[in-house]
């Protein structure tokens, strides 16, 4: 199937145009605006789906297919001056996640955000956040990546502070903007270092030219630190529970996407930008990949442990889920680190596949749990777990969704979390058994945490103050239903997903030489 060559540009431009128009349309009618936003995002998801179908069918394990789009001219000129979009299987894989999350968030907002003022700005910012995330994922230019990173962080910061009458949300937003401003400036400094040496901004050109001088090492460290900080790995994780916990649930769902976009940045920097020199020996005859891999693995393990232990101690529902999300991000980084440290071996590849598969599973599971927390808040106006109880009688569907979410997030069969976590355990065991044991133990602890939550919130006697609690409106149930359907589908047919979507993405990351020739060969 052939699609127009400008589809990648439209994927970013449509939400942007939608965002600019939303402010004008919302002056006419509120309902019209909601329908317009849903239509824009639906169109966008359709475009992402078409492009994804095209890329996944055209790429084979030996030669991953890369879609390049040049802004402003028909042909690439050498040296590459113009901005290129370089869409391979990994980028479009992340774009699918982002568009699912935002689409669900918008449907959910219809009823959930109804009572608030300032909704025109809310929808505008949500569309801008979408455009930022998709731009980060599709772009092939370092500076363009920085610009979209800033769009993402500014839009998400404003959205975190949406409930401005609560001091905590403003405080969380301030923390987030400080962290992301520093992170973005580090990224910009690293880009400037690379630019100063090679006079190029395109990822493929830079990757071709990089010689691993000392300045390149500094740039690598700055890029990984800044992007991992925005992805929420442990020493820099403090912003994550605050902002996840205090933003409206729909915003949290979009924020999960933004966090994963930063994770994608880490993957892209390590595997593509520095892909050419990964297997070369650095200091003391240790190859670069071992160096970076063993740098990431301890941080990932600490993330898992801290996330789980802090989750056990929480009484606030959303903060608890947020700490679980920290642990899940730890699992992803553990898989990436293992994949790096064992690069070239079969289990290193398995680890990377597991990590990539876990990205989409984490987004769906954690997203579903946040939506359930939002539904409970909508019905009871209560965040604290100590105050809840006996909700299962009044909110049947929400309870079922919560059970599915908790089993999936803890990695129980037959849900999707099991498939990816199994891959991660298997491969880390081959690298170092202790890592796998820690990972499994923490997973069990996570299950225990959520069972405790389930018991205190849904079980027990019916509380008198929740006598009038009703099931949430249909649009919210529908939004959660979409996520549940995908979760069950992924859980029942993990092989289908693994072979058709995850494996091409892993191939695209690992075959760096192909990336360069596909992008620059057409010049």
């Amino acid at each position, binding site marked *: 199937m052939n699609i127009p060559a400008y589809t990648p540009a439209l994927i970013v431009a449509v939400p942007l145009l939608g965002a600019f128009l939303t402010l004008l349309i919302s002056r006419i009618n509120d309902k019209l605006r909601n329908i317009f936003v849903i239509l824009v995002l639906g169109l966008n998801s359709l475009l992402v789906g078409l492009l994804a179908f095209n890329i996944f069918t055209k790429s084979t394990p030996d030669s991953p297919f890369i879609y390049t789009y040049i802004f402003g001219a028909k042909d690439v000129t050498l*040296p590459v001056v113009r901005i290129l979009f370089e869409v391979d299987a990994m980028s479009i894989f992340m774009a699918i996640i982002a568009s699912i999350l935002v689409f669900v968030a918008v449907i959910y907002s219809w009823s959930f955000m109804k009572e608030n003022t300032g909704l025109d*700005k809310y929808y505008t910012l949500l569309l801008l956040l979408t455009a930022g995330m998709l731009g980060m994922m599709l772009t092939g230019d370092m500076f363009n990546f920085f610009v979209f990173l*800033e*769009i993402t962080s500014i839009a998400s910061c*404003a959205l975190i502070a949406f409930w401005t009458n609560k001091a905590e949300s403003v405080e969380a937003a301030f923390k987030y903007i400080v962290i992301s401003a520093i992170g973005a400036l580090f990224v910009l400094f690293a880009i400037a270092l690379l630019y100063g040496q090679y*006079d*190029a901004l395109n990822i493929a050109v830079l990757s071709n030219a990089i010689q691993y*001088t000392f300045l390149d090492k500094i740039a690598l460290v*700055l890029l990984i630190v800044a992007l991992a900080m925005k992805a929420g790995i442990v020493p820099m994780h403090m912003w994550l529970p605050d902002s996840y916990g205090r933003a409206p649930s729909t915003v949290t769902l979009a924020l999960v996407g933004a966090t994963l976009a930063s994770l994608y940045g880490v993957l892209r920097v390590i595997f593509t930008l520095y892909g050419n020199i990964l297997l070369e020996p650095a200091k003391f005859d240790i190859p670069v990949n071992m160096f970076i891999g063993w740098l990431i693995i301890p941080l990932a393990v600490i993330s898992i442990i801290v996330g789980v232990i802090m989750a056990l101690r929480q009484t606030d529902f959303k903060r608890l889920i947020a700490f679980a999300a920290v642990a899940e991000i730890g699992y992803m980084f553990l898989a990436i680190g293992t994949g790096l440290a064992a690069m070239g071996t079969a289990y290193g590849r398995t680890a990377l596949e597991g990590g990539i598969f876990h990205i989409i599973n984490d987004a769906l599971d954690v997203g579903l749990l946040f939506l359930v927390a939002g539904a409970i808040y909508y019905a009871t106006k209560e965040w604290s777990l100590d105050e809840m109880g006996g909700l299962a009688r009044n909110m049947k569907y929400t309870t079922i969704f919560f059970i599915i979410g908790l089993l999936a997030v803890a990695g129980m069969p037959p849900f999707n979390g099991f498939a990816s976590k199994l891959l991660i355990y298997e491969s880390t065991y081959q690298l170092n058994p202790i890592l796998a044991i820690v990972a499994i133990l923490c997973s069990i602890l996570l299950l225990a945490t959520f069972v405790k939550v389930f018991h205190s919130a849904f079980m027990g006697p019916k509380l008198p103050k929740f006598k009038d609690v009703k099931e949430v409106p249909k649009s919210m149930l529908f939004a959660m239903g979409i996520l549940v359907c995908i979760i069950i589908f992924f859980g029942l047919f993990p092989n289908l997903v693994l072979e058709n979507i995850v494996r091409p993405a892993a191939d695209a990351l690992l075959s760096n030489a192909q990336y360069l020739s596909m992008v620059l060969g057409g010049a």
Partner: protein
Amino acid sequence: MSKRNLVAAVFFSIVAVIFIFSALLMHPFGVLDESDMDDYVIENTQEETGANNGVTSVVFDYRGFDTLGEATVLFTAVAGVIMIFRRLKND
């Protein structure tokens, strides 16, 4: 010295060392290693874009998509600031 200060001092000194090293190792000021991309722009800007100003031709033509992003950032900030100072229902 409190615990927070100690952590901050360690963080600060690590970052300081990184940045000082990068400043000392940069190429001498005014003597460039490579300038292919920019020379291309300087040579071709008048023919390709018709603009006499090289910087503007980069901003709006060669890297026009960046500028769209930049305009979007400003738009986002304005929307965010107006949203933060909006009138709430219970005010």
